[in-house]
């Protein structure tokens, strides 16, 4: 079950009273979440519900509604959940942010500089949605000082697909910084080979 369905306006959704998004059965909350996306104050309602809801289906409806809104407010509501300790919430937040690339864009720089390595790691995926030149610049800046092996691996994974020649020097630096890490050696070789022979 994907946590974020393709955003669409819920014209077929049942009308629901605004308050019910955090009350009632999971079915009622799900219906209210679907309906909220079409309401003028829908993003605020969904954002409030996101901080309380734990039912997977209702969460899916909330994330989908916020992604469909694709506003600065909806992206700001989702961003904190990237650092959730629950895998389901992290995945839902990441899927939602990926589904609204323009609204997510202003957050990516600060997410990549976050003190929490897990946040930096997950945020590498968001870079994929940016124009290639901007994505390369952000990942090069990240890799230049990154000390966490898994963050480096996540950045190299993206560069292996969209990397440009200007990323080659920092990849060389990373291979020297992480000598003795077989997976990073493998990843960096794949990325540098691909960039060198597009």
């Amino acid at each position, binding site marked *: 079950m994907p946590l974020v369905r393709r955003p669409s306006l819920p014209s077929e959704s049942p009308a629901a009273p605004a308050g019910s998004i955090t009350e009632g059965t999971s079915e009622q909350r799900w219906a209210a979440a679907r309906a909220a996306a079409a309401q003028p104050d829908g993003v605020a309602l969904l954002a409030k519900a996101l901080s309380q809801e734990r039912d997977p289906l209702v969460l899916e409806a909330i994330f989908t509604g916020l992604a469909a809104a694709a506003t600065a407010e909806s992206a700001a509501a989702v961003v904190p959940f990237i650092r959730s300790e629950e895998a389901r919430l992290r995945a839902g937040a990441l*899927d939602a942010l*990926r589904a609204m690339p323009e609204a997510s864009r202003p957050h990516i720089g600060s997410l990549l500089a976050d003190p929490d390595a*897990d946040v930096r790691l997950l945020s590498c995926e968001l870079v994929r949605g940016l124009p290639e030149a901007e994505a390369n610049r952000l990942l090069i800046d990240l890799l230049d000082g990154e000390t966490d092996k*898994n963050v480096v691996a996540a950045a190299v994974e993206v560069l292996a697909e969209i990397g440009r020649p200007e990323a080659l020097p920092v990849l060389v630096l990373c291979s020297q910084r992480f000598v003795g890490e*077989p997976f990073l050696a493998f990843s960096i070789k794949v990325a540098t080979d691909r960039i060198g022979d597009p």
Partner: protein
Amino acid sequence: MTEPSGKRILVIDDANLVRRFYRDALEHAGFQVDEALNGVEALEKVLGAAYDLIVVDVNMPQMDGFTFLETLRRQAPPVSSLPALVISTEAAAHDAAAARAAGANFYLVKPVGQELLVEHVSIMCGLPT
């Protein structure tokens, strides 16, 4: 290349390079390897073919590894009892506990080298190491 082990492994990870790295190691050790990019795709595969072990990441789009494992354990046997090796970047003690609660049989923290991967997969498949 080692003799075929007769064991079939499903590797579930959204990272292309991770899947390639694991596949190279496992195939070289004689395992047959299939791949899935997320929990949704993995569920389709485990319901359509017989596997001896799954190697699964946690943070994946569409369906994370824990949700996949919880769903897997609710299936009918023998799918519900498929052994699962979780390999994640999440290194805290509560992450391993969450993996076990979701249905993991064993938990490793990334990055995992090829020798360590093959060793654990072999043990979990009941093969000599």
